């Protein structure tokens, strides 16, 4: 009879205080739940509360006064919870008291319900194409019925040029486009611009922001990543060749597992094409070798691996899934249906992988180096002699220096290498880590995917075979780059949209979860996502669809150039831009003032060839502990973590930079030299800088400035004009 009565009470209670378990989870779960069980107490289930922790049972059903939980929250005894000043409200305390007195009923399945609810979140469902509300030729316009008038042609080509190339259009091109009466002129222009190598530099830069690209590791060591630039170049080539986005994703996550190339001796002399292609693909995996790594406080192999795997998971979440998985490293995600266990299952995917510097060339090339390595021996011996020279022995010093220089020049050039992901066997086990701390091992987990995002492919690995190669990342890559994945295409479509309109259809490009913004036009986002996949994941196709729309071609508020485009635009206007592509990063000259705060100038190897200093910003040295002051002032990202959208600030130091810096003054002089011999320098300047002719008034004012201050000062002024820095 007693049990029946108890059950009845519980049913009643469930209707009265059904929310108490959730209250306990919310208030106590942070410290007493999941892997964090302070004082041994787990508050995540009724059974665990009844069992209690080191102080004894937390809940004695039916007896609130004897329940530690109640004593602690009511603050009747020594134990006062939650810790600190913030007590629960009287109403909550009363609810918990009544709930305990009623037998502490725990509605099973409450957590499952939350997971089910989360699984219905818009971005976790596959996108589908729906019929647009308007009947328009361009699908974007069919969803967005734009009322704004069309932008003037001169403004349009300037906009297009900055959007696709990050550079101003050539004045002759502006002229030609403005006068082209062919109805297909715009389409031709878009196609031509998409085929230019400048496109990959611009959009590659966008991707490099997302993957926190840098040439050094950050922190105190801030060690140089000698091969990072190969990844940067790979990204630029990938965009230029319109590599299908799903392939781009697969290569970065798992090229080595999907297109293995290192188990044969084929290619000893000349690399066969297939192997060369696979090596190119493998450069993508360098993504996981570029993070900001605190090596100086990750002494232990296991600790370093824990940090590295966490960075890999966070990077994957941010870049490909548009999810902030990092929260789940220490606890179940508070907002998204990603449990801490899910996080470590993802982390286990990277457990068999590590960063290693490997040759990416033929055996012959390596032999060639090693054969002549003897010459290096001579250089080293001479250097040793040099170190032991007596001070003051000037002649001997100079002779030796000459010999060293000679030996160095004759020494063989190092063969091509890259830092890529490779495998290590045996694959270490992965555990849930309490609070993300590598020393607090919890449950052992197997690699897998977050349940809320749909099951991934099976990760079937042979066990105990001699040639066992992990296939974990391959499974991850195929899961993410699958047309069935609800996030992949949407996230990338949104990035492309943001690149053209300044703001994405989802305003939080790296957060498609519950904390993120909902899409402003979900049907359009989904339509474009499906369109992308239906067209072989071609980003250039996606660009064309968007760029052909009336929505894109309409007048709009001007947008400020980002730091890279601004610097490149100044060089382009000055006629000084060096369009050389690829290669090791370039450290440019710094002014005396700019060196402030640099830890050690020897870590900033200024390129001896001044022409290199005029290269596009994407090729400049990205040092995590020191951003180029001009880039920093104009909101370039700090490369510590993924940057999905740059800030646009307007501050006085920007004005000081553009008006006063040595570099700007130099470019203004070059700009002036470029136009001074023109028939009408003011006209020429306007066409180069703004893609239009000056009005009569502007012409008058500009001539006044030039006559009072000289042409270089007028050019400096042009660089400072809002019209130069902003694009319509």
């Amino acid at each position, binding site marked *: 009879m007693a049990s029946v009565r108890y059950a009845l009470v519980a049913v009643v209670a469930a209707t009265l205080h059904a929310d108490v378990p959730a209250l306990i989870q919310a208030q106590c779960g942070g410290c007493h739940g999941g892997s964090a069980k302070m004082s041994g107490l787990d508050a995540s289930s009724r059974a665990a509360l009844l069992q209690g922790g080191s102080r004894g049972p937390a809940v004695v059903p039916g007896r609130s006064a004897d329940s530690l939980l109640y004593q602690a929250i009511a603050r009747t005894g020594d134990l006062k919870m939650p810790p600190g000043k913030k007590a629960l409200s009287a109403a909550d305390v009363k609810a918990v008291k009544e709930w305990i007195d009623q037998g502490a009923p725990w509605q099973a399945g409450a957590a499952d319900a939350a997971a089910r609810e989360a699984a219905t979140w818009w971005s976790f469902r596959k996108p589908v194409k729906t019929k647009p509300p308007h009947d328009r030729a361009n699908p974007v316009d069919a969803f967005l019925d734009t009322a704004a008038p069309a932008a003037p042609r001169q403004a349009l080509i300037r906009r297009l040029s900055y959007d696709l190339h990050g550079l101003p259009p050539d004045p002759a091109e502006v002229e030609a486009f403005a006068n082209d009466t062919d109805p297909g002129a715009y389409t031709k222009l878009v196609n031509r611009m998409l085929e230019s190598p400048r496109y990959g530099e611009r959009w590659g830069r966008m991707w490099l922001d997302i993957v926190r690209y840098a040439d050094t590791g950050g922190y105190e060591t801030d060690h140089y990543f000698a091969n990072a630039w190969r990844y940067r170049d790979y990204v630029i080539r990938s965009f230029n060749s319109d590599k299908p986005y799903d392939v781009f994703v697969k290569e970065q996550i798992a090229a080595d597992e999907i297109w293995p190339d290192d188990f044969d001796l084929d290619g000893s002399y000349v690399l066969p094409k297939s192997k060369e292609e696979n090596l190119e693909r493998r450069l993508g995996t360098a993504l996981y070798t570029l993070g900001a790594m605190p090596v100086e*406080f990750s002494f232990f192999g296991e600790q370093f691996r824990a940090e590295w795997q966490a960075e890999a998971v966070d990077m994957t979440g941010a870049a490909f899934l548009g999810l902030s998985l990092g929260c789940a490293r220490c606890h179940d995600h508070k907002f998204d249906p990603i449990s801490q266990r899910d996080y470590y299952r993802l982390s286990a995917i990277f457990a068999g992988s590590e960063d290693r510097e490997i040759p990416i060339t033929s055996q012959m090339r390596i032999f060639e180096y090693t054969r002549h390595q003897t010459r290096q021996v001579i250089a080293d011996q001479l250097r040793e002699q040099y170190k032991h020279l007596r001070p003051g022995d000037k002649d001997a010093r100079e002779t030796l220096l000459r010999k060293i220089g000679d030996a160095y020049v004759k020494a063989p050039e190092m063969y091509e290498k890259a830092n890529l992901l490779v495998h290590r066997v045996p694959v270490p086990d992965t555990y849930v880590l309490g609070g993300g701390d590598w020393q607090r091992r919890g449950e052992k987990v197997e690699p897998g995917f977050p349940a809320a995002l749909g099951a991934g492919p099976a990760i079937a690995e042979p066990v105990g075979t001699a040639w066992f190669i992990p296939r974990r990342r391959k499974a991850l890559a195929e899961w993410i780059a699958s047309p069935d994945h609800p996030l992949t295409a949407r996230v990338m479509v949104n990035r492309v949209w943001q690149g053209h309109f300044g703001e994405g259809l989802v305003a939080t490009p790296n957060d498609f979860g519950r904390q993120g913004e909902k899409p402003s036009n979900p049907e359009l986002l989904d339509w474009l996502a499906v369109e992308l996949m239906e067209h072989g994941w071609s980003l250039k196709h996606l660009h064309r669809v968007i760029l052909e729309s009336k929505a894109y071609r309409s007048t709009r508020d001007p947008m*400020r150039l980002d730091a890279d485009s601004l610097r490149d635009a100044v060089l382009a206007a000055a006629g000084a831009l060096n369009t050389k592509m690829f290669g090791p990063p370039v450290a440019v000259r710094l002014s005396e003032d700019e060196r402030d705060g640099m*830890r050690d100038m020897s870590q900033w190897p200024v390129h001896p060839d001044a022409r290199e200093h005029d290269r596009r910003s994407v090729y400049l040295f990205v040092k995590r502990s020191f951003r180029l002051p001009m880039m920093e002032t104009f909101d370039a990202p700090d490369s*510590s973590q993924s940057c999905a959208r740059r800030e646009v600030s307007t501050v006085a130091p920007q004005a000081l930079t553009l008006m006063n810096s040595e570099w700007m003054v130099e470019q203004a002089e070059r700009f002036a030299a470029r136009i001074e011999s023109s028939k009408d320098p003011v006209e020429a300047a306007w066409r180069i800088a703004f893609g239009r002719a000056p009005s009569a008034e502007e012409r008058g004012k500009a001539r006044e400035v030039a006559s009072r201050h000289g042409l270089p000062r007028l050019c400096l002024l042009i660089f400072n004009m*809002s019209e130069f820095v902003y694009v319509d």
Partner: protein
Amino acid sequence: MSIDAASFSRRQLFRSALGFPALAAAALTNPLAPRQPHFKATAKNVIFLFMHGGPSHLETFDPKPELNRLHGKPVPASFGKVQLQFSKFEEQPIIGCRRTFSRYGQSGMEISDLFPHTARHADKLAVIRSMYHDGFTHTAALNFLNNGWPRLGRPSLGSWVVYGLGSECDNLPAFVVLLEGGIKCGPPAYSAGFLPAVYQGTTLRNGPAPILNLKPPPGMTGADQRDLLDSLRWFNERHAGQHPAQSALEARIASYELAFRMQAAAPDLADISKETKATRDLYGLDNGTTADFGGRCLMARRLVERGVRFVQVWSGSTTGGGDWDGHKQCDANHKKMAGKTDQPVAALLADLESRGLLDSTLVIWGGEFGRTPTSDGGLNGGGDPEGRDHNPYGFTLWMAGGGVKGGRVIGRTDEIGLRAIEDPVHVHDFHATILSLLGMDHTRLTYPFQGRDFRLTDVHGDTALFDKLRA
């Protein structure tokens, strides 16, 4: 505008511009407009005297006679183990302290003979002997102290303060950093992290051009520049007129005027010729040992006088002159560093007080961690038997002014100064307390980034220290 309004991200402001153009325009025009704190503040400004490298608490403010008794002996097993960067704690002997501690002021606070000048202000100091965190390397610890997080990417303390309170100075940056040279963690120590760049620290150099790109180009006179700026304004106003909805264009025009005012104000700021001989002597400007740090302390006072919100003065650098990182000959190292800084620090306290600025200016002294009671490497390894390793588990910082009641010692480390054991103050608590003194609730000073509202104090921070400092 309240701080809560300010805690909207720019993204939100941009989008809300459709509905609330006035708010958006105000924020875009001047994100540094002064803002009311959450509650009544006792401090308006902060001067953080940062001792780069990690000064030993054992040689300065936390006397441990037990060290001399145990000198050369292993650490008693009862102290357990800690993780250090260079030495193996359990294998190193304890080393004694050569300093003499005396009692100062009405409170009788014990201060070592390294700081005879500062000691005269003992009754102004609230010495916190129970600081702790767990970042035992410089960068982790520097990031912790400066950004509230051992890794990269978070905004600095100064950035949060300026984001919360705005600026009361319209011709100088709101957050100024006075470096001695390079620092181990580099600019992240004063970066705005994910906050808009307007909140980042500006480094000020010694000499006539204290701010980067402040001087007009060679050959351009002040009149030339004014004329050029007027012409620029003419062009920019026409452009802005064609785009009335884009308020950033107006902000841009205003930013050139601010830049021009900064150019005008900075030489006056840098010109210390009008300071009296007494002031020069107070800071030790004519003494080769103290002139460098003294000059920066004087500059800090001049900045605060002009309404600059947050000033950080660094002692020690990686690019010459050394720092407080006493791995070798800790005692000798500290004698040198204290010699450079003691008189200027005392001068700053006295000077602020005599000008009535100390009540509203919170002065903080300390480094990224303290040092170990044990040797840096006597028995094995390449360390120096007379050096001390990094110790983040228990160390000392002090505060003065800004509503802090002085002449008191808060917290305690164990008998050998290894760990904070009484009233421990974590870095998060320390930050929460600084914000409280400035009238801000550390749980409400937030900024949305990557899907959540971030705080200086992450999800931690306790203000028990705040109550103690004012009691």
